[in-house]
């Protein structure tokens, strides 16, 4: 049993609430990512679970056991730090053996388990090196082996990939996910990178300003953001203010109306979240498209395999549109935008 339950967990630093009352459950064997910009409380929450930050109020349970006030040494959690935090004066093997020595395990047993752990991250040949003689990716794998060798009840990863270059990051991401799955280890992964979050997680917890904004599968969060913040963070580059008429249609300032799937009978003000790549740009009006409007190209940025445009509708609404790199529109050109009713998703207007 290694389910993690946070119940009304808060962290205040004086007047400042770093983490506001947060409740969530991370199922056994699940990999959940805390995602958000820096300062959103994701690392503080992770460190509270790890025992490095005192909880102001609320409880943390792991496998039904209340660990809220336990020191880190008695939580049996594997923690991987952003900077790896290897012991610089110990060899790779010494680093991995440390947690086992703390558990008063016999020498022969330690040696066998260290060998196994290093083999699992393919570092057996570097057992006698010092951390400073290793590359970043190798140090990361030592940190992982050191956290896993103690057979922790849960694995906590604090931005484990942020110090690696792009190619290594991809490799390590895959490797961490495979290890986690093969060990069926309850895992929390903290990152600010939505790409990383989407590709490794069973579920995401999107956080902002010390609050949970949305909890859901990568697909749910990516396609149906629950708030303007999440939409923005997940790459919806258009958040268009609309007035809903209760008949599944949204109206722009000019009164221009278009269909929104999922709007149904909603009324009042809302924001239509649209991805730049879901808006088509063409030289002639598109036949049979319900949501289409004339626009003027304001500017464009060449991005290699595509071009990012800023276009202005006739009522001054600006949209970000992604187009093909072939035969791009020139600034000032007239064009038509169109999107499918199901492409957009409604989120609540941001509180003023």
């Amino acid at each position: 049993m290694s389910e993690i339950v946070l119940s009304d967990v808060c962290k205040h630093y004086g007047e400042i609430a770093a983490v506001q009352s947060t409740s969530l459950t991370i199922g056994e064997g699940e990999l959940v990512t805390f995602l958000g910009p820096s300062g959103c409380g994701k690392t503080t929450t992770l460190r509270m679970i790890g025992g490095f930050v005192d909880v102001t109020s609320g409880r943390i349970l792991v496998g039904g056991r209340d660990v809220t006030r336990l020191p880190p040494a008695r939580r049996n959690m594997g923690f991987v730090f952003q900077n790896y935090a290897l012991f610089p004066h110990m060899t790779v093997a010494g680093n991995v053996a440390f947690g086992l020595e703390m558990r008063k395990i016999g020498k022969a047993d330690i040696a066998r388990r260290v060998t196994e752990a290093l083999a699992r991250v393919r570092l057996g040949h570097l057992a006698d090196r010092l951390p400073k003689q290793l590359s970043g990716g190798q140090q990361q794998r030592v940190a992982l082996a050191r956290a896993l060798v103690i057979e922790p009840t849960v694995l906590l990863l604090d931005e484990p990939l942020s110090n690696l270059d792009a190619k290594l990051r991809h490799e390590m991401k895959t490797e961490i996910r495979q290890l986690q799955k093969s060990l069926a280890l309850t895992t929390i992964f903290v990152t600010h990178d939505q790409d990383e979050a989407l590709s490794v997680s069973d579920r995401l917890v999107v956080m902002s300003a010390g609050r949970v904004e949305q909890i859901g599968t990568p697909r749910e969060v990516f396609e149906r953001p629950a708030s303007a913040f999440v939409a923005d963070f997940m790459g919806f580059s258009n958040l268009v203010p609309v007035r809903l008429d209760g008949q599944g249609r949204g109206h722009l300032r000019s009164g221009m109306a278009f269909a929104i799937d999922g709007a149904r009978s909603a009324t009042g003000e809302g924001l239509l979240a649209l991805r730049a790549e879901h808006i088509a740009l063409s030289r002639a009006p598109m036949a049979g498209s319900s949501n289409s409007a004339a626009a003027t190209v304001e500017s464009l940025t060449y991005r290699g395999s595509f071009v990012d445009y800023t276009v202005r509708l006739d009522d001054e609404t600006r949209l970000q549109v992604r187009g093909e790199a072939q035969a791009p529109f020139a600034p000032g050109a007239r064009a038509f935008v169109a999107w499918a009713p199901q492409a957009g998703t409604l989120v609540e207007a941001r509180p003023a």
Partner: protein
Amino acid sequence: MNATAPVLLYRIAAVAVLGFIVLPLAVIVWVSFFSNRILSFPPEGYTLDWYARAWSRAEFREGLLLSLQTALFASLASLAIGVPASYALARCKFPGRDVVTNILLAPMVVPGIVGGAAMYIFYIDVEIATEVQLAGSLPGLYAAHLLVALPWTIRLVTASLIGVDRSISEAAASLGAGPVTVFFRIILPVIKPALIASALFAFVASFIDLEKSLFLVGPGRTTLQIAIVSYLEWNLDSTIAAVATVQIAIIAALLLITNRYAQLNRAF
């Protein structure tokens, strides 16, 4: 290589400063071998007599021994006191931390003669109040030298501890190590170069102290520095150069040996 005028000036200045540091030491070593009866140039010949003469004088032999003993005590005691203090200063937040830091570093900036006089007066007052004799006693001298040495330990060890990434302590804790284990198995080994360097500097700071010792050595006792000053009052021959050379050799040897075991430039 074509050096521009500013670069040339810079190099000349650098060499001049180096020369100013090294030349007096070289000269005193050189002079210690002159056979001239009084300190003078040029050398009339060379001899090792001054070393024999220095060794034959009890005040230099006993002074050297007392200085070495005192410095060794000061060095070890300032580690024993300074390391835990530095750990608290570097790792814990508590009210008055800056005040404590400044008090611990103060002996470094208070002129030695002032500190020496203050300790002497304090010892006398203690003696009057309690009849415990500190002024002129060996424990009194040791305590004063601990004060000379401690700021070095505090400064070096605190600086080194601040540089130690907190997350390695946390990593050790998450692996099951309690605070004491973290301190002895992780923190101390990681700051070893700073420990060795601070032991060395504390030793040297005590060894070269004159002012505090002047006030506090008891009758019939002398440190090497006091012996040198007393000798210079009545004599001007190369004995003093020989004693100085031995001192330079001792400190240089300490530096070299220490540097073999801990790269000192890493300790700062």
